[in-house]
């Protein structure tokens, strides 16, 4: 569904991504992990159009999307969340999601239909859908859910979820991970999930790609990857024990 070929991105002399290649298959829940600064978010930015890749090709459903503007990429069916939630604070929670439902597709949905769908999505992630709910009243977990809801409302085929667990407690993490699974299982949305906390992610995903210093250092089943010496080294010797 998504294939990256030799994708690179430099910032001046700094190479944030160097020749990264991998495939995401239809219906897959792929984990993208790596230490801080390994290029995960840069990769997301390139795929979602927030950044233009310096080199390489990004193909989505067979078509090149590298270098398109973010709104066009969204219309093609790729949605993303942000690591640090970026809600529109002046709008209500419902309006935040309704905007995404209205503008997220190739053809714009009428207001009423967009609102109805926004309500459905809010119910799915477990957020209030009344007009009075404001983003300012949501806590960390709520804001993460709002990020997900906004991305889902655009009706994506591929969801790029950036650190959905950051800042959450254990119980919230378990819920969020379960939600991602349900999104994949029930809505059939392919997911690439970035996280730098590995433990929870490794239990949920089908396959893992590991980045370090902008390069792909490993790819495979969670169990194999956790044993990979290069991965262990990248995480400063912290070996992951899977239960």
């Amino acid at each position, binding site marked *: 569904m998504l294939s990256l070929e030799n994708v690179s991105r430099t910032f001046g002399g700094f190479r944030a991504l160097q020749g990264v290649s991998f495939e995401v298959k239809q219906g897959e829940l792929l984990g993208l992990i790596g230490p801080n600064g390994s290029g995960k978010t840069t990769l997301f930015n390139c795929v*979602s*159009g*927030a950044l233009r890749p310096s080199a390489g090709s990004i193909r989505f459903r067979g078509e090149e999307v590298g270098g398109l*503007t*973010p*709104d066009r990429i*969204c*219309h093609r069916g790729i*949605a*993303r969340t*942000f690591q640090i939630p*970026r*809600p*529109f*604070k*002046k*709008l209500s929670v419902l*309006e*935040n999601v*309704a*905007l*995404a439902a*209205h*503008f*997220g*597709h190739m053809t714009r949905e009428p*207001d009423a239909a*967009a609102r109805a769908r926004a309500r459905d999505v809010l119910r799915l992630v477990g957020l209030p859908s009344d007009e*009075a709910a404001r983003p300012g*009243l949501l806590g960390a977990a709520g804001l993460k859910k709002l990020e997900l809801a*906004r*991305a889902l*409302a*655009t009706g994506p085929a591929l969801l790029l979820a950036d650190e959905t667990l950051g800042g959450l407690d254990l119980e919230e993490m378990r819920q969020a991970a379960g939600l991602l699974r349900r999104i994949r299982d029930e809505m059939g949305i392919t997911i690439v999930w970035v996280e730098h906390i590995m433990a929870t992610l490794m239990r949920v995903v089908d396959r893992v790609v590991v980045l370090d210093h902008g390069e792909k250092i490993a790819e495979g089943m969670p169990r194999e990857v956790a044993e990979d010496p290069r991965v262990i080294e990248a995480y400063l010797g912290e070996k992951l024990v899977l239960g």
Partner: protein
Amino acid sequence: MKRLLALVGVALLALVPWLPLGPARLYILHVLVLVLIWAFVGTAWALMGRFGLVSLGHGAFLGLGAYTTTLLWNFLGVSPWIGTPLAAGLAVLLALVLGYPCFRFRVVGHYFALVTLALGEVIRLLIIAERDWTGGSLGLTLKDAGAFNLAAIQFADKRIFYLVALAVWLVGLWVWWWVDRSMTRSALEAIGEDETAAASVGIPVTGFKLRITLLSAGLTAVGGVLYAQYVTYINPGTLAGIGVSLQIVFAVVLGGMYTLLGPTVGTALTIALAEYLRVAFGVRFLGMADTIYGLALVLIIIFLPAGLYGGLRELVLRRAAPPRAAT
């Protein structure tokens, strides 16, 4: 109910010129016409301003509009009925030339404000430089077409101009309201807050910013035309450049740019204040009006960031509806 109130309000406003206003009737009418014209321009500015697109160069569009129709009329005898769409078109074109690169390359916030500031000055200097036909800094007088000439939009009777200005002002309010009630408002609000996030949910950021800028520029040019037709004298100092551009911004900030009537209230207050101070002090305290005006502005920005009208409206609404407990 609201609609009825608005209708009654408009009807009352339309009747003002026929009220017994006493010996100062003409003067009062004159001030009211100016208020309506500048309120329209302020409303057009606020279309952009309320979404964080702060233009400090709207004088460029104003001047372009005024000079286009006046020059066409004076030199080629083209009626302002034809000149006005041309003027608006030129302003839209200018806004496109300015806006597209700015928005495409993410010139935002203070940088955008600075670019527009330069634009206002460029137009002012251009008008001065082309003195052979624009009259330079001495300005230009609209060629007289008689006391009542519909084709030339010239009326000696202030009551007619009052009605024209009232109609144009209402159109401005209608445009503001129309933008406000559409999905466009939410989209622009989102863009104003966070362009990256807005683009990520599929909002075409550049397109939206460009459209609202073109709309605002076109309307502002119409305001310039109206001013020129009413005063029948234009010069680059009053219609282009930093001075008038900032005057528009200050009036709107004073009244409040987030509400329908904010720009109007702000404009009415600044004009009333300037007129009052001018009459009260005459030439004794030159600059007194500006000082009081500046002071008022500073106080309002600190204590009523939503503007005088916007802030008071908020207070009244909050008084009317008891605060909901935060959940």
